[in-house]
C-alpha cells in the first residue's frame, strides 16, 4: 500500500470513513458561509468546533472498549442526574427546558443520553446470560433504562430527542435477540395507543403533526417550515441555483436556514447533486459502522457498534425526512452539517467509540 511508510496507528485509521466525515464538515462550512450571506458568522465557529470534536473522537478511539463497558452504567447515572438538574435548574431555551449552563458551554444532557443509552443497553445485554433472552428479565430492566430518560426528555418537552432515545434503546433490544413477536406486538400496540398518546401531546406538538400531514393548509403558519423547505429543495433542481445565489435562505423565507433546515439551504444552491453527495457520504459512514459491528467478536462491542451507528442513522434519517416533508418538524439537526455543537459532539462520541471498537477488531483479527 502506498501509505506503507506511515506508522501503523495512523495507517490503520478508517480513512474512507474519516474522509467522508471531513467532506461533510467541509461542505457544511461552505453552506454555512452562504447561509450567513457570505460571511463567516456561522462557518468559522462551526469549523473550529469540528476540529475540536474531531480531535476528541481520535482521542476516544485510543481507549479500549472494555473501558466503555465499565463506564456505561456510571455515565448513564450521571447523565440521568444531569437531566433532572435540567428540569430543576435549566433555563428556558426555545420554549423548552433543554439546557444546563455549565459556565463555559450550554450542555444538553438529553443529547449525551443518545450514545449513553446505547452503551448502557449494550452493557446490560452483554451481562444477561444467553438463555435469559426470552424471559421477562431481558425486558424490564432495559425498559426501565430507556423509559426513565425518555420520560424526562419528553416532559422538557423534546419529542424528537425522546423518540431518538427510545429508538436507540429499541434497536439494541432488537439486535440483542429479543423474540420478534415482541416487536410485532409492540407495533400493533402502538397502532392502538398512538391516537390515545396523541391526546396527551402539547398543543404545538399536536399542531405540528396536523401540519405535517397537510402543510399546504397553513402555508404561513406552522406549515411554513415544511412548505418553505420543500420550495428551497424543489427550486434547486439537479445542480442548484449556484453558490451564494439561494434566494429562499438569503431572503429569509426559509426558517432556521443554518440549523435544522440547513439541508434545504444546501439543496437550493447545490441541487440534487449536493443532496446525493451528502446522502452517499453518510451512507458510507453508516456502512462502515455496521461493518465494525459485524466484525466484532464480543457481545458488548457488537451491540454498541450497531446501536451507535443506528443512532447516527436516526439523526440523518429523521432530519432529512423532516426537511423533505416525510416526517413532522421535531427539531433534530443534521449531524456534522447543521450549525451547533451538541449534535456534532454526540456523533463524534459515537464515531470515536466505533473507531475504538474497530481498533480492537483489528487487534483480535491479527491475533487470529
Amino acid at each position, binding site marked *: 500500500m502506498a501509505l506503507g511508510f506511515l506508522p501503523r496507528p495512523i495507517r490503520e485509521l478508517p480513512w474512507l470513513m474519516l474522509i467522508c466525515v471531513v467532506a461533510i464538515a467541509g461542505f457544511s462550512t461552505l453552506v454555512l458561509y452562504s447561509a450567513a450571506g457570505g460571511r463567516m458568522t456561522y462557518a468559522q465557529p462551526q469549523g473550529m468546533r469540528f476540529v475540536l470534536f474531531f480531535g476528541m473522537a481520535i482521542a476516544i478511539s485510543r481507549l479500549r472498549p472494555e473501558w466503555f463497558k465499565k463506564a456505561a452504567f456510571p455515565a448513564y447515572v450521571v447523565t440521568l442526574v444531569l437531566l433532572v438538574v435540567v428540569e430543576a435548574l435549566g433555563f428556558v431555551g426555545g420554549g423548552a427546558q433543554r439546557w444546563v449552563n455549565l459556565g463555559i458551554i450550554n450542555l444538553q444532557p438529553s443529547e449525551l443520553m443518545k450514545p449513553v443509552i446505547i452503551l448502557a443497553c449494550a452493557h446490560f445485554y452483554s451481562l444477561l446470560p*444467553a*438463555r435469559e433472552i426470552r424471559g421477562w428479565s431481558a425486558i424490564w430492566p432495559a425498559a426501565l433504562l430507556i423509559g426513565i430518560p425518555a420520560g424526562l426528555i419528553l416532559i422538557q418537552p423534546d419529542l424528537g430527542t425522546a423518540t431518538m432515545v427510545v429508538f436507540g434503546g429499541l434497536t439494541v433490544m432488537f439486535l440483542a*435477540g429479543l423474540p420478534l413477536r415482541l416487536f410485532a406486538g409492540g407495533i400493533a400496540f402502538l397502532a392502538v395507543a398512538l391516537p390515545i398518546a396523541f391526546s396527551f401531546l402539547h398543543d404545538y406538538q399536536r399542531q405540528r403533526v396536523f401540519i405535517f400531514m397537510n402543510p399546504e393548509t397553513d402555508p404561513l403558519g406552522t406549515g411554513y417550515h415544511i412548505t418553505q423547505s420543500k420550495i*428551497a429543495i*424543489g427550486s434547486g*433542481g439537479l445542480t442548484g441555483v449556484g453558490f451564494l445565489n439561494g434566494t429562499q435562505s438569503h431572503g429569509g*423565507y426559509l426558517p432556521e436556514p443554518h440549523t435544522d433546515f440547513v439541508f434545504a439551504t444546501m439543496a437550493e444552491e447545490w441541487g*440534487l447533486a449536493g*443532496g446525493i453527495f451528502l446522502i452517499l457520504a453518510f451512507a458510507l459512514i453508516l456502512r462502515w459502522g455496521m461493518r465494525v*459491528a459485524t466484525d466484532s467478536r464480543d457481545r458488548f462491542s457488537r451491540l454498541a457498534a450497531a446501536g451507535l451507528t443506528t443512532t447516527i442513522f436516526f439523526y440523518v434519517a429523521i432530519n432529512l425526512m423532516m426537511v423533505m416533508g416525510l416526517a413532522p418538524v421535531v427539531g433534530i439537526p443534521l449531524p456534522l452539517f447543521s450549525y451547533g455543537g451538541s449534535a456534532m459532539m454526540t456523533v463524534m462520541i459515537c464515531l470515536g467509540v466505533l473507531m475504538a471498537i474497530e481498533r480492537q477488531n483489528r487487534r483480535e483479527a491479527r491475533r487470529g
Partner: protein
Amino acid sequence: MKRRRFGGGPPVTEAGQTQSFSRRAFVLGTLQSGVAVLLAGRMGYIAIAQNERYRDLAESNRVQTRLIPPRRGWIVDRHGHPMAINRADIRVDLIPDFIEDKDRLIAELTRLLALPPEEVQRIRADLERGEGFQPVPVAEHLTEQQYYSVKVHEPDLSGVSVLEGYSRSYPAGAAVGHLLGYVGTPNQRDYDAENRNPLLITPGFKVGKEGLEKVMEQRLRGRPGAARVEVTARGRLVRQLQTLPDVSGNALRTTIDAELQAFAARRLGEESGSCVILDCNNGDILALASMPAYDPNSFSDGISHSEWAMMREDERHPLINKTLNALYPPGSTFKPAVAMALMEAGVDPDETVSCGGGYTLGSRRFGCLGVHGPMNLHRAIAKSCNTYFYTMGRRIGIERFSAMAKRLGLGQRYDLPVVSQSYGTIPDPAWKQRRYRQEWSQADTLNAAIGQGYVILNPLQLAVMAARVASGRDVQPRLVLDRYPPARPLPFAAASFEAVRSGMAEVVNGNGTAGASRLPLDGIQMAGKTGTAQVRNIGADRGRAGAAWRYRDHGLFVFFAPVVQPRYAGAVVIEHGLGGARAAAPVACDVMTFLFDKAKAEERLAPLEAQWGGNIAERMARRAAAWANRPAGAPAPGDPA
C-alpha cells in the same frame, strides 16, 4: 424456578445469539440502505419532477408586485391655471408587520429626521392602534440630506420604507381650502368601502378627504403602475426587476377663476365670512371663498393634533365651508325676491305705502329701521323699508312670495360636486304645519317678508338669486367647466325684473343703503341689496357694536354688475359684521372691482392687508404660533368654563 418464556423451542445459546445478531444486523443495514434510497428518491422527486412547480413558488416568494400610486390629476381653474398640483416628494413610512425592534427604530428615525416629540408620540399611537398592513407615515418632504441619511441606514432599519413619490400641493393655500378640500392617507373605512383595494394601503397613496378632491376622487385618481421587485421575507427590497408606469389621473377643469378666488379670500380679511361670485348668465361659479379656512397643504401632510384643536376651538369656524354649510337669516337681502313676487302678483310699483316707522298687527308692533314716509317699490328697495314689505307682503300672502323665492333658487339644493350643502328653509304654511304642527300666522308672514323668522339660507343661494334676478334666466350654479345647455329664461315679465334691478341699482348708486360701495370704475355700476340678520333678539340694542362679537348681527350683501347687461352676480356674508352696508358691501365692491380692473382692486386691498398684518399665510402662521405659545393651563377660547 419456573421462568416465563416468550419463545418456545430450544434455549438460546451464545452461538445462536451471534447468528441471530448477524441476521438482524443485516436486516438493520438493509433497512438503512432502503431509507437512504428512499430519501434520495424523495429528493429527486421534489428537485427534478416537481422542480418547475417549486421554482415558481420560489419566484412568487421572492418577487412581489408593488403598486406605484398614480399621480393625481391636476385641478385647474377656468383659464387652466393650476389650483392643485403634484410636487415631487420623498416620504418615509413604517410598515408595522416588518418592524423588528420598534423602540430602537423610532429612536433611530427621531435622530435621523429630527422628529419633534409630538410627532414621535403620534407615530407611536398610530403604531399601537394600526393594522399591521397599513403603513404609518413618519415624515414627508424630506430634504436631500435627510433622504441620504435615511437611505444609508435603510438596510439596518427593517420596517422603514423610503419612497420617492408625489405629494399634493395647493399654491393658493387656505384661499381654496374649503373649495378643493384636501387629500389624506386612506383610513380603514375608505379601505373597506373599496373592497379592500390594495392601492389604498400602498405607502404614499392618498385619497380626497374633502371638497372637490373627495367628490371627484375617481376622476382624479388615475391608474396605479406596478413594479416587480425582489424582496426578502421581511419585505426589504433587494432589487427592482421591471416597472409598469402609472397612468396619472385626469385633470379637472373648474369654473373657478383662481385669481378672483384668491382675491376674494384675501379681501375677506380677518372676518369670518364668505364670498360667492357667479357668472350670472350661465351659472359658472367664479369664486367660492369661505374664510377663515384651513390650509389644505398642511392638512394633506397630516395635521397635528394641536393644529386641529386650534381650528376646532376657533369661534370663526375655519373648518366649516360657509358658502354651503352655514345658514343665515337673509334679512333684507331677501327683499328682491319679495319684490319680484309683488310685481308678478300685480302690485303697482308706483303704489306707495307710508312708512311711519313700523307696522301694527293687532297689538304687536313690527318695526322699521327708519321713518321713511311714502314709499314705492323702487324706493322701498333702495331704502330697505320694512313697512312697505310688511304691507305688501301681507297683501299678496306668504305662498306667493315663498314660491317666488324658491323659483329664484332660495332654499334649493343644487346639482353640484360638493360633499354637502345645507339648503335651509323657505317657509310656507304647509311647511310650518309639517315642521311644528302649528298654523301659519300673519306675524310669520310679516317676518318672512323681511327675510327673518323662519327663513334661513346659505350664501350660494343668495348669489344664485342675484344671478337669476340679474339675468332673468334660470341659471344653475356649477363648478365643473363643460358644455351645458344655455339657461332658459324665467317665466316672469321683463318689467318685473326691470323694477327690481333698478331698485337694486339705486341701493348702491343712488339714494340707497350702500351708497358708500359704488364701484370706483368709469361706466360700470354695481347693483345690490344690503341685509342685516339678527343673531339674537335681546332688547333695543340687540346685536349692536357694543355686544359681544358672537351676538352681533350678520352683515349680508347680494349684488350684480354691471347694472346694464349684467355679467356677474354674487353674495357676501360677513358673520357678526353688524350690517350689510357696513361689512359686506365694501367686500363685494372690491371683489367686483377686481373683475374689471385688477390693478385698482389690488391697490385698494394693499393698505387693508397691511392693517391686518400681512397676507393670509403670514397671519395664519402668527396665529398658530400664538396658539402654540399660549400660557399653559389657560382655557382655550370658547371652552365651556
